[in-house]
């Protein structure tokens, strides 16, 4: 099985960084099994592959790292997504792109660190194309990616109202959060790989 982090970070078998990653063999193995169980689960529940790949392509586009962005764009196409969905995800990611992390703290001394930013909502035309369910997922995803400290019960209520089950909300949250990890590991290891001692 291909190790996706190695592939995207350009880590060659037998290289110094390949050996360095082996110092944490369980982390290496389970970073990969995390990917496997999110994209090839035993049971997709109510969260089908095309939706998982659409969310992943959106997350990767928002992070703007070329290797992971290309990989998940291709994965969405390979999952059999309608071309107009792929186009909508790409153009929504352009609309939604910003700088993070920002957000608000509970009332008290930390509010001097509050920073407001984009509260992204899917525009009406792409919303009609992708449906309320996926649109709600993208809106939640944007919050998780850029301003997770603004999370509050209404964010989850919006998902429940759009038809997401509690279990599928857990899987969606894991998918976005895992990608926030995987994209950063790839970016970090790629820089390290290009800077031998």
């Amino acid at each position: 099985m291909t190790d996706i982090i190695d592939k995207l970070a350009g880590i060659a078998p037998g290289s110094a960084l390949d050996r360095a990653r082996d110092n944490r063999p369980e982390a290496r193995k389970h970073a990969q099994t995390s990917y496997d169980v999110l994209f090839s689960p035993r049971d997709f529940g109510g969260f089908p592959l095309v939706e998982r790949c659409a969310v992943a392509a959106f997350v990767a586009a928002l992070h703007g790292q070329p290797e992971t962005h290309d990989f998940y764009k291709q994965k969405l196409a390979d999952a059999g997504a309608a071309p107009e969905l792929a186009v909508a995800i790409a153009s929504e990611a352009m609309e939604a792109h910003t700088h993070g992390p920002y957000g608000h703290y509970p009332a008290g001394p930390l509010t001097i660190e509050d920073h407001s930013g984009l509260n992204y909502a899917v525009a009406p035309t792409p919303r009609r194309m992708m449906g309320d369910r996926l649109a709600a997922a993208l809106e939640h995803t944007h919050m998780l990616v850029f301003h997770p400290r603004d999370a509050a019960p209404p964010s989850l209520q919006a998902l429940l109202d759009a038809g997401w089950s509690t279990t599928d909300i857990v899987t969606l949250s894991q998918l976005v959060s895992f990608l926030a990890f995987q994209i950063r590991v790839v970016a970090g290891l790629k820089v390290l790989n290009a800077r031998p001692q």
Partner: protein
Amino acid sequence: MTGQMTGKTLAPPPHTEPTVFTRDQLDWLPWIEPLTEAELTPRHRESLVDAARAKSDYFRLLARDPDILESRTRTDKDIFYNPQAGAPRADRELAAAATSRLNGCIYCASVHARHAAVYSKREADVQKLLDEGVSADLDPRWNAIVAASVALTSIPLDFGPEHIDRLRAAGLDDLAIVDVINAASFFNWANRLMLSLGEPAVQKATP
């Protein structure tokens, strides 16, 4: 219409929100329904990895998708607990605390600031990070680790060869640098779950 009932988020019981970053132990209250202990199948229990986590609302909520919970947990444990070479535990915990401080996860920051303080015995420096934020001046090694964590956490990502050079100049070898990358990246996973599925609460004083 499918006729399915739409669920409602949970109303947390009366509690006090923490309003500062702290090393105190906090509680965590879910916004959507965890499984009950009675609902846990053998597979759910296995996915918790530590049997004691069956008492935690957070882990019983994540157990709704046991396969990703188990992979998440095994990734986490190796990054932080594996004692083989690499960065000392205190450095890994510092990267987790700095990432949590920048993302604004008061709960995760409390846990990992506590660990960083215990393993380093540098309570004052850890508290300075919590009080002043990620620009706090600690020492060259910890400043380099915090700066690397910040660069990996910011979006767009800002991590470059200058961060590698600074970590090396502070005495980290490549195994240790991999640990810092893993630890900061992992807390970009953990913070998002903790922040978005529930909220922290100040622990009630025990009578």
